[in-house]
Protein backbone atom coordinates (compact mmCIF):
# COMPACT_ATOMS: atom_id res chain seq x y z
CA UNK A 1 0.00 0.00 0.00
CA UNK A 2 1.43 3.40 -0.74
CA UNK A 3 1.81 5.71 2.07
CA UNK A 4 0.12 8.97 2.50
CA UNK A 5 1.83 12.29 2.76
CA UNK A 6 1.80 11.86 6.51
CA UNK A 7 3.98 8.73 6.40
CA UNK A 8 7.67 8.81 7.08
CA UNK A 9 8.54 7.96 3.50
CA UNK A 10 7.10 11.23 2.36
CA UNK A 11 9.63 12.95 4.40
CA UNK A 12 12.15 11.89 1.77
CA UNK A 13 10.66 14.31 -0.69
CA UNK A 14 10.19 17.02 1.80
CA UNK A 15 13.61 16.57 3.47
CA UNK A 16 17.03 17.69 2.34
CA UNK A 17 18.36 16.30 -0.94
CA UNK A 18 21.11 13.68 -0.21
CA UNK A 19 24.43 13.80 -1.94
CA UNK A 20 24.82 11.68 -5.08
CA UNK A 21 27.27 9.26 -3.54
CA UNK A 22 25.39 8.76 -0.33
CA UNK A 23 24.16 5.27 0.51
CA UNK A 24 20.36 4.94 0.23
CA UNK A 25 18.63 4.82 3.53
CA UNK A 26 16.26 2.08 4.59
CA UNK A 27 13.34 4.41 4.16
CA UNK A 28 14.42 5.20 0.61
CA UNK A 29 14.76 1.52 -0.24
CA UNK A 30 11.35 0.74 1.15
CA UNK A 31 9.80 3.64 -0.77
CA UNK A 32 11.45 2.57 -4.00
CA UNK A 33 10.30 -0.99 -3.54
CA UNK A 34 6.74 0.08 -2.84
CA UNK A 35 6.71 2.37 -5.89
CA UNK A 36 8.11 -0.41 -8.10
CA UNK A 37 5.34 -2.71 -7.08
CA UNK A 38 2.85 0.04 -7.75
CA UNK A 39 4.22 0.53 -11.26
CA UNK A 40 4.18 -3.18 -11.98
CA UNK A 41 0.62 -3.56 -10.87
CA UNK A 42 -0.54 -0.55 -12.85
CA UNK A 43 1.14 -1.73 -16.06
CA UNK A 44 -0.40 -5.13 -15.54
CA UNK A 45 -3.78 -3.52 -15.80
CA UNK A 46 -4.80 -3.10 -12.25
CA UNK A 47 -6.42 0.04 -11.08
CA UNK A 48 -3.93 2.03 -9.07
CA UNK A 49 -4.89 2.95 -5.52
CA UNK A 50 -5.15 6.47 -4.24
CA UNK A 51 -1.77 8.07 -3.96
CA UNK A 52 -0.19 11.40 -3.51
CA UNK A 53 0.37 13.77 -6.38
CA UNK A 54 4.09 13.12 -6.71
CA UNK A 55 3.64 9.38 -6.94
CA UNK A 56 0.83 9.79 -9.48
CA UNK A 57 3.06 11.99 -11.65
CA UNK A 58 5.84 9.45 -11.49
CA UNK A 59 3.39 6.65 -12.30
CA UNK A 60 2.12 8.51 -15.35
CA UNK A 61 5.66 9.03 -16.57
CA UNK A 62 6.33 5.34 -16.18
CA UNK A 63 3.15 4.51 -18.08
CA UNK A 64 4.09 6.81 -20.93
CA UNK A 65 7.58 5.39 -21.14
CA UNK A 66 6.16 1.89 -21.21
CA UNK A 67 3.68 2.75 -23.94
CA UNK A 68 6.32 4.50 -26.00
CA UNK A 69 8.47 1.40 -26.01
CA UNK A 70 5.88 -0.25 -28.30
CA UNK A 71 5.54 -3.45 -26.44
CA UNK A 72 2.17 -2.74 -24.95
CA UNK A 73 -0.60 -5.14 -25.84
CA UNK A 74 -4.17 -4.21 -25.22
CA UNK A 75 -6.43 -6.55 -23.40
CA UNK A 76 -8.77 -8.62 -25.55
CA UNK A 77 -12.01 -6.78 -24.57
CA UNK A 78 -10.37 -3.45 -25.22
CA UNK A 79 -9.09 -4.55 -28.60
CA UNK A 80 -12.54 -5.84 -29.51
CA UNK A 81 -14.15 -2.52 -28.64
CA UNK A 82 -11.61 -0.57 -30.64
CA UNK A 83 -12.04 -2.77 -33.73
CA UNK A 84 -15.80 -2.50 -33.53
CA UNK A 85 -15.57 1.26 -33.33
CA UNK A 86 -13.28 1.39 -36.34
CA UNK A 87 -15.51 -0.89 -38.42
CA UNK A 88 -18.59 1.04 -37.42
CA UNK A 89 -16.98 4.21 -38.74
CA UNK A 90 -15.85 2.47 -41.91
CA UNK A 91 -19.02 0.63 -42.99
CA UNK A 92 -21.65 2.50 -41.03
CA UNK A 93 -23.76 1.55 -38.14
CA UNK A 94 -26.61 0.25 -40.35
CA UNK A 95 -24.60 -2.75 -41.45
CA UNK A 96 -23.52 -3.63 -37.97
CA UNK A 97 -25.44 -5.94 -35.76
CA UNK A 98 -25.62 -5.66 -32.06
CA UNK A 99 -24.04 -8.96 -31.27
CA UNK A 100 -20.45 -8.02 -31.75
CA UNK A 101 -17.48 -9.05 -33.76
CA UNK A 102 -18.88 -11.81 -35.92
CA UNK A 103 -21.53 -9.59 -37.43
CA UNK A 104 -18.89 -6.99 -38.07
CA UNK A 105 -16.71 -9.47 -39.83
CA UNK A 106 -19.58 -10.89 -41.84
CA UNK A 107 -20.61 -7.42 -42.95
CA UNK A 108 -17.11 -6.62 -44.05
CA UNK A 109 -16.94 -9.80 -46.10
CA UNK A 110 -20.27 -9.02 -47.72
CA UNK A 111 -18.97 -5.63 -48.81
CA UNK A 112 -15.94 -7.22 -50.34
CA UNK A 113 -18.07 -9.72 -52.25
CA UNK A 114 -20.28 -6.97 -53.65
CA UNK A 115 -17.28 -5.09 -54.94
CA UNK A 116 -16.09 -8.28 -56.53
CA UNK A 117 -19.23 -9.20 -58.45
CA UNK A 118 -20.56 -5.72 -59.25
CA UNK A 119 -18.45 -5.25 -62.46
CA UNK A 120 -19.41 -8.73 -63.64
CA UNK A 121 -23.06 -8.02 -63.04
CA UNK A 122 -22.81 -4.77 -65.03
CA UNK A 123 -21.06 -6.55 -67.88
CA UNK A 124 -23.63 -9.33 -67.86
CA UNK A 125 -26.50 -6.89 -67.89
CA UNK A 126 -24.89 -5.04 -70.80
CA UNK A 127 -24.62 -8.25 -72.79
CA UNK A 128 -28.23 -9.11 -72.08
CA UNK A 129 -29.39 -5.68 -73.20
CA UNK A 130 -27.29 -5.89 -76.36
CA UNK A 131 -28.66 -9.32 -77.15
CA UNK A 132 -32.20 -8.06 -76.58
CA UNK A 133 -31.60 -5.12 -78.91
CA UNK A 134 -30.29 -7.44 -81.63
CA UNK A 135 -33.29 -9.72 -81.23
CA UNK A 136 -35.70 -6.79 -81.43
CA UNK A 137 -33.92 -5.48 -84.50
CA UNK A 138 -34.05 -8.85 -86.20
CA UNK A 139 -37.71 -9.37 -85.33
CA UNK A 140 -38.75 -5.88 -86.36
CA UNK A 141 -40.74 -6.01 -89.59
CA UNK A 142 -38.60 -4.68 -92.37
CA UNK A 143 -40.59 -2.35 -94.51
CA UNK A 144 -40.70 -3.44 -98.05
CA UNK A 145 -38.92 -1.01 -100.28
CA UNK A 146 -41.35 0.86 -102.47
CA UNK A 147 -41.75 -0.50 -105.91
CA UNK A 148 -39.44 1.35 -108.23
CA UNK A 149 -41.13 3.65 -110.59
CA UNK A 150 -40.98 2.31 -114.06
CA UNK A 151 -38.15 3.69 -116.08
CA UNK A 152 -39.12 6.64 -118.16
CA UNK A 153 -40.03 5.56 -121.63
CA UNK A 154 -37.71 6.63 -124.34
CA UNK A 155 -39.30 9.56 -126.13
CA UNK A 156 -39.05 10.13 -129.84
CA UNK A 157 -36.19 12.41 -130.69
CA UNK A 158 -38.40 15.29 -131.76
CA UNK A 159 -40.01 15.36 -128.31
CA UNK A 160 -36.74 15.59 -126.44
CA UNK A 161 -34.49 18.51 -125.69
CA UNK A 162 -31.39 18.13 -127.84
CA UNK A 163 -28.69 20.08 -129.63
CA UNK A 164 -29.88 22.13 -132.56
CA UNK A 165 -26.97 21.21 -134.82
CA UNK A 166 -28.97 18.80 -136.94
CA UNK A 167 -31.66 21.41 -137.44
CA UNK A 168 -29.45 24.41 -138.13
CA UNK A 169 -26.48 22.87 -139.87
CA UNK A 170 -23.23 24.71 -140.54
CA UNK A 171 -23.62 28.46 -140.28
CA UNK A 172 -22.31 30.39 -143.25
CA UNK A 173 -20.16 33.41 -142.53
CA UNK A 174 -22.61 35.79 -144.09
CA UNK A 175 -25.28 34.37 -141.81
CA UNK A 176 -23.15 34.52 -138.69
CA UNK A 177 -25.13 37.35 -137.11
CA UNK A 178 -28.55 36.16 -138.20
CA UNK A 179 -29.50 34.55 -134.95
CA UNK A 180 -33.14 35.49 -135.40
CA UNK A 181 -33.80 33.09 -138.25
CA UNK A 182 -32.01 30.21 -136.51
CA UNK A 183 -33.80 30.73 -133.21
CA UNK A 184 -37.04 30.91 -135.16
CA UNK A 185 -36.27 27.53 -136.64
CA UNK A 186 -35.36 26.06 -133.26
CA UNK A 187 -38.50 27.40 -131.67
CA UNK A 188 -40.73 26.06 -134.45
CA UNK A 189 -39.14 22.63 -134.34
CA UNK A 190 -39.34 22.33 -130.54
CA UNK A 191 -42.90 23.59 -130.59
CA UNK A 192 -43.89 20.70 -132.84
CA UNK A 193 -42.33 18.23 -130.47
CA UNK A 194 -43.87 19.92 -127.47
CA UNK A 195 -47.34 19.77 -129.05
CA UNK A 196 -46.93 16.11 -129.83
CA UNK A 197 -45.83 15.42 -126.31
CA UNK A 198 -48.54 17.53 -124.78
CA UNK A 199 -51.55 16.80 -126.98
CA UNK A 200 -50.70 13.43 -128.41
CA UNK A 201 -49.09 12.15 -131.53
CA UNK A 202 -50.87 12.10 -134.84
CA UNK A 203 -52.24 8.63 -135.70
Amino acid at each position, binding site marked *: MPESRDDDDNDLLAGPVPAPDDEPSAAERAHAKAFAELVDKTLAGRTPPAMNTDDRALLEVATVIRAASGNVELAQPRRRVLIEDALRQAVGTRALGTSGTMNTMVTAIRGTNFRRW*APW*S*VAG*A*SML*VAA*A*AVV*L*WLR*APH*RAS*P*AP*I*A*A*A*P*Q*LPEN*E*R*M*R*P*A*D*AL*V*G*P*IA*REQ*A*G*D*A*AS*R*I*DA*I*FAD*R*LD*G*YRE*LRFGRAP
Partner: protein
Amino acid sequence: MKHVACLLVVAVAACNACNSPSPSEHAPPPRVTQTAEPSDAIDQKLMVALSQAKNLTHKARIYTSDGDAASAIAAVREILALHFPANSPEAEDVRNDARAMLARLLVGQGNLDEAMNVIAEGLAQSQRESFFVANLYTVKGEILEARATALDTDPANKAHVVELRHAAIEAYDESNKIDKKLQDQLTESR
Protein backbone atom coordinates in the same frame (compact mmCIF):
# COMPACT_ATOMS: atom_id res chain seq x y z
CA MET B 1 -26.61 -0.68 -58.50
CA LYS B 2 -26.51 2.90 -59.68
CA HIS B 3 -24.53 1.86 -62.75
CA VAL B 4 -26.91 -0.96 -63.51
CA ALA B 5 -29.89 1.36 -63.30
CA CYS B 6 -28.27 3.87 -65.66
CA LEU B 7 -27.45 1.08 -68.06
CA LEU B 8 -31.01 -0.14 -68.11
CA VAL B 9 -32.33 3.34 -68.78
CA VAL B 10 -29.96 3.77 -71.70
CA ALA B 11 -30.88 0.36 -73.07
CA VAL B 12 -34.60 1.07 -72.92
CA ALA B 13 -34.07 4.38 -74.68
CA ALA B 14 -32.00 2.66 -77.37
CA CYS B 15 -34.69 0.05 -77.94
CA ASN B 16 -37.32 2.72 -78.26
CA ALA B 17 -35.13 4.53 -80.76
CA CYS B 18 -34.76 1.30 -82.74
CA ASN B 19 -38.49 0.78 -82.89
CA SER B 20 -39.44 4.38 -83.65
CA PRO B 21 -39.90 5.19 -87.30
CA SER B 22 -37.14 7.09 -89.03
CA PRO B 23 -37.83 10.58 -90.39
CA SER B 24 -37.95 9.20 -93.89
CA GLU B 25 -40.72 6.87 -92.82
CA HIS B 26 -42.88 9.85 -91.91
CA ALA B 27 -42.82 10.94 -95.52
CA PRO B 28 -45.83 9.87 -97.51
CA PRO B 29 -45.21 6.76 -99.55
CA PRO B 30 -44.63 7.28 -103.24
CA ARG B 31 -47.73 7.11 -105.32
CA VAL B 32 -48.16 3.89 -107.21
CA THR B 33 -49.84 5.71 -110.04
CA GLN B 34 -47.01 8.19 -110.42
CA THR B 35 -45.95 8.26 -114.04
CA ALA B 36 -42.38 8.55 -115.08
CA GLU B 37 -41.40 11.80 -116.72
CA PRO B 38 -38.37 11.76 -118.96
CA SER B 39 -35.99 14.40 -117.77
CA ASP B 40 -35.12 15.43 -121.32
CA ALA B 41 -38.69 15.93 -122.54
CA ILE B 42 -39.44 19.26 -124.12
CA ASP B 43 -41.27 21.18 -121.44
CA GLN B 44 -43.05 24.43 -121.03
CA LYS B 45 -40.06 26.15 -119.49
CA LEU B 46 -37.98 25.47 -122.58
CA MET B 47 -40.74 26.69 -124.88
CA VAL B 48 -41.17 29.90 -122.90
CA ALA B 49 -37.45 30.60 -122.98
CA LEU B 50 -37.23 29.87 -126.71
CA SER B 51 -40.23 32.06 -127.38
CA GLN B 52 -38.67 34.94 -125.45
CA ALA B 53 -35.36 34.48 -127.24
CA LYS B 54 -37.14 34.48 -130.60
CA ASN B 55 -38.96 37.70 -129.82
CA LEU B 56 -35.84 39.39 -128.49
CA THR B 57 -33.85 38.58 -131.63
CA HIS B 58 -36.66 40.03 -133.73
CA LYS B 59 -36.65 43.13 -131.57
CA ALA B 60 -32.92 43.44 -132.09
CA ARG B 61 -33.32 43.03 -135.81
CA ILE B 62 -35.92 45.80 -135.92
CA TYR B 63 -33.75 48.10 -133.80
CA THR B 64 -30.83 47.40 -136.09
CA SER B 65 -32.84 48.19 -139.19
CA ASP B 66 -33.87 51.43 -137.50
CA GLY B 67 -30.26 52.27 -136.78
CA ASP B 68 -30.71 51.94 -133.01
CA ALA B 69 -27.72 49.74 -132.31
CA ALA B 70 -27.76 50.43 -128.58
CA SER B 71 -31.30 49.12 -128.17
CA ALA B 72 -30.48 46.17 -130.39
CA ILE B 73 -27.51 45.33 -128.18
CA ALA B 74 -29.66 45.64 -125.05
CA ALA B 75 -32.26 43.30 -126.52
CA VAL B 76 -29.66 40.67 -127.36
CA ARG B 77 -28.15 40.95 -123.88
CA GLU B 78 -31.56 40.05 -122.48
CA ILE B 79 -31.34 36.71 -124.26
CA LEU B 80 -28.26 35.87 -122.24
CA ALA B 81 -30.25 36.40 -119.04
CA LEU B 82 -33.12 34.07 -119.93
CA HIS B 83 -33.80 31.04 -117.73
CA PHE B 84 -33.67 27.80 -119.66
CA PRO B 85 -34.08 24.31 -118.20
CA ALA B 86 -30.80 23.30 -116.65
CA ASN B 87 -30.24 20.27 -118.87
CA SER B 88 -31.36 21.68 -122.19
CA PRO B 89 -28.73 21.76 -124.95
CA GLU B 90 -30.84 24.39 -126.66
CA ALA B 91 -29.87 26.87 -123.96
CA GLU B 92 -26.20 26.74 -124.91
CA ASP B 93 -26.99 26.91 -128.61
CA VAL B 94 -29.29 29.90 -128.29
CA ARG B 95 -26.89 31.78 -126.02
CA ASN B 96 -23.97 31.16 -128.34
CA ASP B 97 -26.03 32.36 -131.28
CA ALA B 98 -27.03 35.45 -129.31
CA ARG B 99 -23.36 36.07 -128.44
CA ALA B 100 -22.41 35.88 -132.10
CA MET B 101 -25.16 38.37 -132.93
CA LEU B 102 -24.13 40.63 -130.04
CA ALA B 103 -20.47 40.56 -131.05
CA ARG B 104 -21.35 41.53 -134.58
CA LEU B 105 -23.42 44.42 -133.29
CA LEU B 106 -20.50 45.53 -131.12
CA VAL B 107 -18.11 45.28 -134.04
CA GLY B 108 -20.48 47.52 -135.98
CA GLN B 109 -20.18 50.00 -133.12
CA GLY B 110 -16.39 49.80 -133.27
CA ASN B 111 -16.23 48.21 -129.83
CA LEU B 112 -13.84 45.43 -130.76
CA ASP B 113 -12.54 44.70 -127.29
CA GLU B 114 -15.98 44.13 -125.82
CA ALA B 115 -16.93 42.06 -128.86
CA MET B 116 -13.90 39.86 -128.29
CA ASN B 117 -14.84 39.50 -124.61
CA VAL B 118 -18.32 38.33 -125.56
CA ILE B 119 -16.86 35.70 -127.89
CA ALA B 120 -14.29 34.56 -125.37
CA GLU B 121 -16.98 34.21 -122.75
CA GLY B 122 -19.09 32.06 -125.05
CA LEU B 123 -16.19 29.81 -125.96
CA ALA B 124 -15.25 29.40 -122.32
CA GLN B 125 -18.76 28.46 -121.24
CA SER B 126 -19.46 25.99 -124.04
CA GLN B 127 -19.69 22.38 -122.91
CA ARG B 128 -19.52 20.78 -126.36
CA GLU B 129 -18.62 21.48 -129.93
CA SER B 130 -21.49 22.69 -132.08
CA PHE B 131 -22.19 24.70 -135.19
CA PHE B 132 -22.87 27.62 -132.86
CA VAL B 133 -19.40 27.29 -131.35
CA ALA B 134 -18.01 27.17 -134.85
CA ASN B 135 -19.94 30.34 -135.56
CA LEU B 136 -18.32 31.98 -132.53
CA TYR B 137 -14.90 31.17 -134.03
CA THR B 138 -16.07 32.68 -137.28
CA VAL B 139 -17.07 35.91 -135.56
CA LYS B 140 -13.80 35.83 -133.63
CA GLY B 141 -11.97 35.75 -136.95
CA GLU B 142 -14.01 38.69 -138.15
CA ILE B 143 -13.12 40.67 -135.02
CA LEU B 144 -9.43 39.91 -135.48
CA GLU B 145 -9.66 40.97 -139.10
CA ALA B 146 -11.36 44.19 -138.08
CA ARG B 147 -8.56 44.89 -135.58
CA ALA B 148 -5.94 44.22 -138.19
CA THR B 149 -7.68 46.51 -140.65
CA ALA B 150 -7.91 49.26 -138.03
CA LEU B 151 -4.19 49.00 -137.29
CA ASP B 152 -3.10 48.62 -140.90
CA THR B 153 -3.29 52.35 -141.52
CA ASP B 154 -0.03 52.81 -139.60
CA PRO B 155 3.00 51.04 -141.13
CA ALA B 156 4.52 50.80 -137.66
CA ASN B 157 1.87 48.26 -136.74
CA LYS B 158 2.65 45.96 -139.61
CA ALA B 159 4.01 43.14 -137.49
CA HIS B 160 1.05 43.26 -135.18
CA VAL B 161 -1.31 43.40 -138.14
CA VAL B 162 0.27 40.29 -139.59
CA GLU B 163 -0.05 38.60 -136.25
CA LEU B 164 -3.75 39.50 -135.99
CA ARG B 165 -4.47 38.25 -139.47
CA HIS B 166 -2.77 34.95 -138.72
CA ALA B 167 -4.88 34.67 -135.59
CA ALA B 168 -7.98 35.36 -137.69
CA ILE B 169 -6.98 32.57 -140.05
CA GLU B 170 -6.58 30.21 -137.12
CA ALA B 171 -10.04 31.14 -135.87
CA TYR B 172 -11.59 30.48 -139.29
CA ASP B 173 -9.72 27.19 -139.48
CA GLU B 174 -11.03 26.17 -136.09
CA SER B 175 -14.54 27.02 -137.18
CA ASN B 176 -14.17 24.97 -140.34
CA LYS B 177 -12.69 22.06 -138.40
CA ILE B 178 -15.67 21.96 -136.03
CA ASP B 179 -18.13 22.29 -138.90
CA LYS B 180 -16.54 19.41 -140.77
CA LYS B 181 -16.39 17.20 -137.73
CA LEU B 182 -20.03 17.76 -136.87
CA GLN B 183 -21.12 17.41 -140.46
CA ASP B 184 -19.38 14.06 -140.66
CA GLN B 185 -21.05 12.93 -137.49
CA LEU B 186 -24.46 13.96 -138.79
CA THR B 187 -23.87 12.19 -142.07
CA GLU B 188 -22.86 9.01 -140.29
CA SER B 189 -25.90 9.11 -138.03
CA ARG B 190 -28.35 9.39 -140.94
